[in-house]
């Protein structure tokens, strides 16, 4: 949490000014290295901000001479086989490192292995790959699910019925958040999940799904979500004329905006959390550290970004319309993430 607050104030102050304490030797070591980002999908606000964060960080680093080039590639159809081909193309283009936001944690392993065999450094983040030769910057999605139920338990000591909005079926993120929520419900046994629906991390899908399910549900006290689905859920409850439950949100601007409006109206309070798209900049700096020859553990964890009633105003001000709450990471952040993984 202190880590989050620190990152937050950094973001609020002015984010991407990379006031690094001079050029260290480690940075010069990577001056002739070329890095590519292989991204599987660009069709939602989170990914758009992620690409923007990467490009801003990469441009700054290239101008500062930290790195020779850092280019972003996105596949057009969000398919694992297409991304595998893309990674193989990037190997052929002679990049020194490939940073991956993967369409599948396992289906790219063949291509990742080809890259490692060719001497290319592979770093995956957000959508990680399981190939042992790659680095992983992962989010503890299970904890994210569990903490949602923890929060609801602190607000509703008597428990009640929960509605679970799930993500895209067949993806590992969906499985992990779901598993975390299940464990949370086991811990706080006053709660029970009385319905679940796939929202595919999209407001309109969630709205349609919830609207279809609502008539068959008892009174709902809380809604656990996966991000990108909270606003649609709220709309469905509103349209059905039901009492608004506590909906845990996922940092999208429309969700935060709605929260602010509700709070102004009747003092509605909730919690919002998600992984900051700026994690792409963290992946960039971690990759730079690996290329510079630093000893970096293969598994790193990023903290997620939480928005509470206290921080809502300031975050919402920082977040453009249709976007996601963000924070951009610096080299120092990358080093502290690496150090904390070393100690753990």
């Amino acid at each position, binding site marked *: 949490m202190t880590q989050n607050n620190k990152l937050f104030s950094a973001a609020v102050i002015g984010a991407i000014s990379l006031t690094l304490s001079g050029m260290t030797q480690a940075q010069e070591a990577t001056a002739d290295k070329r890095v590519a980002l292989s991204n599987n999908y660009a069709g939602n606000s989170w990914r758009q901000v992620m690409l923007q964060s990467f490009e801003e960080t990469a441009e700054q680093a290239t101008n500062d001479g930290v790195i020779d080039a850092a280019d972003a590639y996105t596949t057009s159809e969000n398919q694992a086989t297409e991304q595998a081909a893309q990674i193989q193309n990037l190997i*052929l283009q002679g990049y020194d490192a490939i940073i991956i936001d993967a369409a599948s944690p396992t289906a790219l392993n063949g291509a990742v292995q080809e890259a490692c065999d060719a001497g290319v450094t592979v770093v995956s983040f957000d959508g990680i790959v399981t190939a042992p030769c790659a680095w992983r910057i992962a989010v503890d999605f299970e904890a994210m699910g569990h903490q949602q139920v923890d929060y609801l338990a602190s607000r509703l000591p008597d428990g009640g019925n929960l509605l679970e909005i799930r993500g895209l079926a067949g993806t590992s993120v969906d499985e992990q958040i779901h598993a975390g929520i299940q464990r949370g419900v086991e811990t706080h046994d006053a709660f029970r999940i009385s319905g679940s629906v796939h929202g595919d991390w999209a407001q309109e899908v969630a709205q349609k799904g919830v609207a279809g399910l609502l008539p068959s549900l008892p009174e709902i006290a809380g809604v656990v979500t996966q991000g990108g689905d909270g606003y649609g859920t709220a709309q469905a409850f509103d349209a059905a004329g039901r009492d608004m439950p506590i909906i845990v949100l996922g940092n999208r601007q429309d969700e935060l905006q709605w929260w602010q409006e509700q709070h102004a109206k009747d003092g509605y309070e909730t919690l919002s959390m998600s992984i900051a798209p700026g994690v792409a900049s963290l992946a960039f700096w971690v990759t730079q550290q690996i290329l510079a020859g630093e000893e970096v553990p293969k598994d790193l964890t990023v903290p997620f970004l939480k928005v509470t009633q206290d921080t809502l105003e300031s975050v919402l001000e920082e977040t453009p319309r249709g976007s996601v709450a963000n924070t951009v990471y610096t080299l120092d952040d990358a080093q502290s993430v690496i150090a904390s993984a070393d100690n753990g």
Partner: protein
Amino acid sequence: MTLFSRYRILLPIASLALLLAVTFYVQPRTMSYFGLNLLFNLAVPIALATIAQMLIIMVNDIDLGIGAFVSLAACVAATFLEQSPLIGAMIMAALILSYALMGAMIHALALPAIVVTLGMSFVWGGLALFLLPSPGGTSPAWLRAIMTVKPPLMPMALVAACLIAGVTHWLIARAGIGTVLRGVGGNADAVRRAGWSLVRLKALAYGLAGLFGVLAGMALVGLTTSADANIALRYTLLSIAGVILGGGEFTGGKVSPAGAVIGALTLALAASFLSFMRLSPDWQIGAQGAILIAVLAARLLFNGRDGARR
């Protein structure tokens, strides 16, 4: 009659050669054993799926479920085939059989294949999700070994492409049963009057398609080392494009197995080429479509001239 219209296969070969030459020019690193393999190894499962699609198109049908079917086969290969090979092989056989049954049903009940295969795609997808609710599984070691073998002289991807083209060319163009199967697409009534059972022939065509679909799934798992339920969904459209690009036509049993393999390679190469050109992803689908249309337009130009003269 021009050279191109007499030999249907020449245009696909010319397109591939041209694209390959430009790719070599843009990215010289691809001009090596290692480079060619990286460029084409993921085209091997696409080529197998394209052959499957070609077998269906050959009998005047179209298969909108092949992508989901290949995904399911991949999931089976990464789970059952690895853990208990016997059960895995039996499931694969059952999958092929169900494809044959689907073909028989489409013919016997006079159902539109486009609807049945689309409907079945959800069944395949559901079964795949049931097997692998989240991505995972492991490729059987022997499968991985086959797909990463390094034969002398030519990389695995090209050897496999030649092998697939050779075997299917023999099956469709040389073997007797292949001629009858093409006849089903050309003139089904004539084949029926000659004493063949159309239901059985359709079941055979679909069964063969199922076999190549299963092979595509296995080849894919050998390359990726594991599977997920959505892994090959885009193969549906790629395979149709590959068949047409390779000189096939939607009606009349006019297909070319070697052409279909070349079509699949061309599609894979087109995507790589666009990536080497650093084209923005927003434009890539469009550019890929433009390459497709350019090849088809070239074919129409040559064939059309021929048709007018006849």
